[in-house]
């Protein structure tokens, strides 16, 4: 393909790790960066709750992901690529991936697998670099951005599994403007579906025959950090983040949902910054120790985490908690 970047732009490919950064722009930035050799990293951490589409892609279409990475390597003029791979995934996909690594090695491309101890922070793009380098898995201060100084100080392109899959589709002309949706929770058809990008959440549920026959609400784009919507909001909203819908019955006790989230945040906080390290711990304790949910104290910590955390992990906690309060519980968040 002559002008892959133009094609990627035209197809509107964006990052599928959740941040939706325009892919072509990211590639161009790494291309322009000084320093050699450049490095390509495929982020297959997938540490969020309710998201399992990267595993699905690596299981069903691993050659596509390699192809997308190979295109990036050629574009950047490098032969070095890493998978930041959830160690549980590697256990299951070892044979397929090892075979492909060998196949590409014969063509001069070096793919390395870093088995990441499964974690949420391990998917943060600078934290994963620390992990591959053998350090404590914690996010780095930016700038410099990975595109300028990434893995071992080299300009590094980090894309999600699905992004590389999309690029391979664009290159061979099969891109259909679809994205992968992970469905979980109280649904009839849990699993991963490839659906058109522009459709509403309601259409997505309809097309997968996942409209519940009970009163429900959903969490979209990650079952820890995603937004919580009531069923009336589904027709006007599209998929966001890393592409997931979890369905909850309205009878779910707020306490149980909060405990699920806060336990996840508590266990996944890397411990680097005060609000997230201590805040996540105390959020869980606050709910656990009180019979009535102390919303005021929770919001004080949530706001502090949202506004002052070091990285996106801590900052992300405001969205689920506040949207749940507003959209489902009809509670004020200020």
């Amino acid at each position, binding site marked *: 393909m002559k002008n892959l970047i133009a094609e990627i732009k035209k197809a509107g490919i964006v990052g599928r790790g959740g941040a939706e950064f325009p892919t072509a722009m990211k590639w161009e930035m790494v291309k322009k960066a000084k320093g050699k050799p450049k490095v390509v990293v495929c982020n297959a951490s997938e540490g969020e709750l309710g998201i399992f589409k990267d595993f699905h892609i690596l299981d069903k279409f691993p050659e596509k992901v390699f192809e997308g990475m190979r295109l990036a390597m050629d574009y950047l003029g490098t032969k070095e690529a890493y998978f930041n791979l959830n160690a549980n995934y590697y256990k299951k996909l070892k044979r397929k991936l090892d075979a492909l690594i060998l196949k590409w090695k014969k063509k001069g491309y070096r793919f390395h697998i870093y088995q990441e101890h499964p974690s949420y922070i391990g998917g943060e793009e600078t934290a994963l670099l620390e992990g591959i380098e053998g350090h404590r898995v914690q996010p780095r201060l930016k700038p410099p951005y990975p595109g300028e100084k990434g893995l071992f100080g080299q300009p590094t392109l980090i894309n999600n599994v699905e992004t590389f899959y999309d690029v391979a589709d664009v290159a061979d002309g099969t891109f259909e403007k679809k994205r992968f949706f992970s469905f979980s929770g109280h649904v009839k058809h849990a699993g991963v579906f490839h659906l058109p990008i522009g459709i509403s959440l309601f259409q997505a549920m309809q097309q997968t025959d996942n409209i519940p026959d009970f009163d429900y609400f959903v969490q979209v784009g990650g079952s820890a950090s995603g937004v919580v919507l009531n069923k009336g909001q589904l027709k006007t909203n599209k998929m966001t983040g890393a592409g997931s819908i979890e369905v909850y019955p309205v009878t779910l006790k707020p306490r149980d949902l909060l405990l699920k989230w806060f336990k996840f945040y508590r266990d996944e906080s890397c411990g680097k*910054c005060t609000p997230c390290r201590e805040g996540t711990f105390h959020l869980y*304790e606050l709910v656990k120790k009180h019979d009535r949910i102390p919303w005021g104290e929770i919001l004080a910590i949530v706001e502090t985490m949202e*506004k002052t955390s*070091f990285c996106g992990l801590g900052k992300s906690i405001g969205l689920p908690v506040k949207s749940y309060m507003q959209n489902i519980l009809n509670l004020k968040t200020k």
Partner: protein
Amino acid sequence: MKKTVFFIDNRKVTANEGESVLRAALRHGIEIPHFCYHEDLPIDADCRTCLVEIQPKGKVVTSCDLMPKPGLMVYTNSPLVQKLRRENLELLLADHKKLCTKCNRGLACKTADLMKKYKVSGEKFHRAEIKEPAHKMGTAAEFNPQACISCNKCVEMCHKIGIGFLELTDKGAKSHLTYNKNPKVDCIYCGQCTVHCPVAAVHEQSHIEQVEKALADKGKIVIAQMAPSTRASIGEEFGLKPGTNLEKQMVTALRKLGFDKVFDANMGADITTWVEAEELAHRIKHKGVLPMFTSCCPGWVKFAEFYHPEILKHLTTARSPQIHSGGSYKTWWAKKAGVDPKKIVVVSFMPCTSKKYESTFEKLKIDGMKPVDYVLTTRELGSLLKKHHIDLPRLKPGKLDFEGTYSGAGAIYGATGGVMESALRSAYFFITGKELKKVEFKQVRGMQGVKKATIKIGKKNLKVAVVYLAKNAQKVIAELKKNPKAYDYIEVMACPGGCIGGGGQPIPSTEAIIAERIKGLYKIDDKMNLRKAHLNPVVRDFMLNYIPTLSKKQQAAILHTHYSRKKKFE
């Protein structure tokens, strides 16, 4: 240099090139609370307490990593900043108040001041239980993982020294300080962790209680001796500028505290210089083992004994200043004064934590007596004085007891290059038999980690090196492996800038502050008539009239030491 003009709380501030908002603020005397910022170490932006509000309204960021743009408006105390900062301080200092009973900082505690100022209870939250027990680094320092706030400063400093003993472990609220389990990595007791811990989670092993007990004991003769560096830095505990010489006020304060005699470790430094310079002259004349390394820094000695036992024969056998003078009090002075040496308690005031470790060595005992009984750091002295409500800077000047008489050579011992310079002033005499006219050796002064010079002494061109930080000692040792004749004499100090940047010094201790303290030391030397150790009348009396009366074995027990390979934690 590119300067940037911006505004902090509507006050015009000029940032130097590369300077963050926090650094510029601190330089202008504008207070922004912070725990994980240290100007000589990497920016971590972990503690999230140096918050400021910027445009658009409602945007709150940390100031440690905020680079100012021209005209930037920064607010350090907006209602939103106050609210978020207080919550983060409560989270960071959860259960901190509980630790006060176990801590010796007392009225000298800056965390307590900060908590009071920002209305932080330290009791709002209860932190996660950390299972790891407290760990003692030899007899020098210790850390309490439960008190650790994961700011990472000690870990970074330990790396900067060149050791890598400390590390953070675990994640989330269970994050805490631990130590490297690798049997080939050990702490050298320099205590740089303690002087870089903002909350005393890592701190010196306190001797305050023992010292107070000795002072209260009427049957004891309690002698104080202060290291060269303490007098030029204790003022910082009382808000004075680094480098302010408070020697005379210290004498008064120590007498107020009940010390029977106030001598000076500077006199000990003069003994060390004498013994060491004589040894250097001897090694040169008799083609002994060269290069010779200094050995007055116990951190450096531990480094050599653990990491490089192959070089131990290169270390001078001279004991260190506090041990020399301490030993002299319990022998020479006791005899002179007609007192029972067993009744003497020697207390050193040191900028150092490894001096505590050194004071416990069995091998240094003289007739079963430890030359130094207790060591208090400069910080501990600050705590002790404040506990007794002694406002040091306001005291009338006092005078050292006669046996505390010292030379300018002893006074500069605390600075990097000071030991070298002192030794050269005397070695010149021991080698040539003549007195040196110009005593300054400016080539070995200053804040560079490795300094090299060739100095002509008689017919000999003496090749010298002065290094600080274990990391730099490592480099010199590597260089010697390639070229064994690269140097004749090498001074090594574990800490930045020498003892004056030691682990027992006031907090904060930065390279800029250390440079100011060093100026204070050289000022003392500059003003003195007596600038050579071997001309110090007290030391001459000890070395010429007392030492020769002893058997060789007794002489060695007072003047010399030996070294051996050390195991981890030894």
